[in-house]
């Protein structure tokens, strides 16, 4: 009895290693390809850099966007269509690649899921209120910022809270994977107050917790908070930790990043970006 138990445990470990190895390899491969691709001599002079051409050739641009942030990335509950400033950026990118708007495949992401989906090659880019931070730059490629926001706090009017200082000893709800927790912690330390954090997987849950009083404040980028603003609640004037949003792609896909940077720079210069922001009541 003991021997076969040991044997099966070993077998399980080997199997597990095998599975993880496969998963790890699957995550690795897409990163290898751009590096090993050589510009073929017989191909006509490609307009697009190799890394970008690959995506164009596949016929689909897979973009991760938010589904619950008005003006940035919002999914219509009835039709399933996405709309927002970041969606429009995706369309612009696709067209620049020679694809059409119909070739863009949107996938709803959350703060928690957007990184891993890039890592395992399921998405080409992520345009989802993704803040550029030094630690993140080690894990993913980011373009230059296309928008700047700041972390804010949403509270119920009835709570009589006027600023972060009033949240001393209270509970703040944040999303897993978002930068809000650290940003608020830094500010709290500066003020010398103590706050407690509850982390949730998605924004609707934090909102529900705010409504029921489980958390005293909902903290995330102000742009996202605007989607949850109601007659009963108010976004505090406090804003901290300026958040630069960038388009993210898998680590190592430098050609893609530079390509998008070119597009963003162009849009800034010829006023397209201002137009886009105005369209969505931003900036």
């Amino acid at each position, binding site marked *: 009895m003991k021997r076969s138990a040991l044997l099966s445990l070993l077998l399980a470990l080997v199997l597990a290693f095998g599975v993880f*190895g496969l998963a*790890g390899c699957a*995550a*690795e491969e897409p990163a290898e390809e751009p590096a090993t691709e050589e510009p073929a001599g017989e191909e006509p002079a490609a307009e697009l850099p190799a890394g970008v051409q690959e995506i164009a050739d596949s016929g689909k641009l897979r973009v991760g966007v938010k589904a619950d942030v008005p003006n940035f990335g919002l999914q219509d509950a009835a039709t399933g269509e996405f709309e927002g400033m970041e969606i429009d950026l995706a369309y612009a990118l696709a067209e620049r690649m020679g694809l059409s708007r119909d070739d863009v495949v949107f996938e709803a992401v959350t703060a928690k899921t957007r990184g891993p989906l890039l890592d395992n090659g399921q998405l080409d880019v992520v345009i989802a209120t993704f803040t550029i931070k030094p*630690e993140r730059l080690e894990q993913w490629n980011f373009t230059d910022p296309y928008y700047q926001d700041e972390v804010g706090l949403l509270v119920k009017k009835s709570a009589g809270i006027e600023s972060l200082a009033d949240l001393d000893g209270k509970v703040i709800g944040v999303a*897993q994977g978002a930068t809000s927790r650290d940003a608020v912690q830094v500010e709290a330390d500066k003020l010398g107050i103590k706050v407690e954090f509850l982390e949730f997987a998605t924004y609707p849950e934090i909102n*529900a917790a705010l*409504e029921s*009083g489980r958390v005293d404040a909902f903290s995330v980028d102000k742009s996202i908070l605007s989607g949850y603003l109601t007659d009963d609640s108010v976004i505090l004037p406090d804003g901290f930790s300026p958040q630069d949003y960038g388009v993210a792609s898998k680590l190592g896909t430098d050609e893609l990043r530079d390509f998008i940077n070119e597009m963003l720079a162009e849009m800034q210069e010829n006023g397209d970006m201002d137009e886009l922001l105005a369209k969505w009541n931003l900036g």
Partner: protein
Amino acid sequence: MTELFERIGFLQQGPFSVPRWEALFANIDLLWQGALVTLLVASLGLALALALGTLFGVMSSSHWKIARGFSRAYVEFYQNTPLLIQVFMIFNALPILFTGMFIPVIAIGVLGVGMYHGAYIAEVVRAGIQSIGRGQLEAALSQGFGYIGAMRYIIIPQAMRVVLPPLTNQAVSLIKNTSVLAVIAGGDLMYAGDAFAGRFGHYGPTYIVVGLLYFVMCFPLARLARKLESRAKEA
């Protein structure tokens, strides 16, 4: 040895890279705390589930239609709705209905799994009681035991033997279901692991270790259940 690891590409980058493992073990305390919470919620929850299960199990075998109906309603409700929404109701809806009634998350965990598994245990107890022939009950009653006395001294001890294997299985299930606390920031093992993994993306190693810890907590009980099963069959 580390050179060998460095050669294996996927250990340097990607979801299972060595730096991720290092980060995990540097913060392993978080997982231990979570595991302790899980054990706490599980033990209290199991106690509650056993209490409720025995109560409703006996009720559903009683003569009175009302008791049987009540028990049936309880069992059907908890067996047909997800544990997740039950927990959400207690977490978010209760404070709204009864303003300011905040039940601490650990208590929510205990109540949630307790009431949920109580329904399943009630069914197990009912089956156990019924497996003891009516003759036993009649014999006991004819000897002068009251209904409750007969239950307590004659029927239930025998039913116990039949009932222990599935009960142990329910206990395993209960331990795993405490993971529902992860959704309401309950501080249990699943939440601790998920929160940590979410902050820096170290999903691979974290989930493996979390899985291992759950396995370690559940496997002994599962083995016990099987032993009890084969013993019950022999008898």
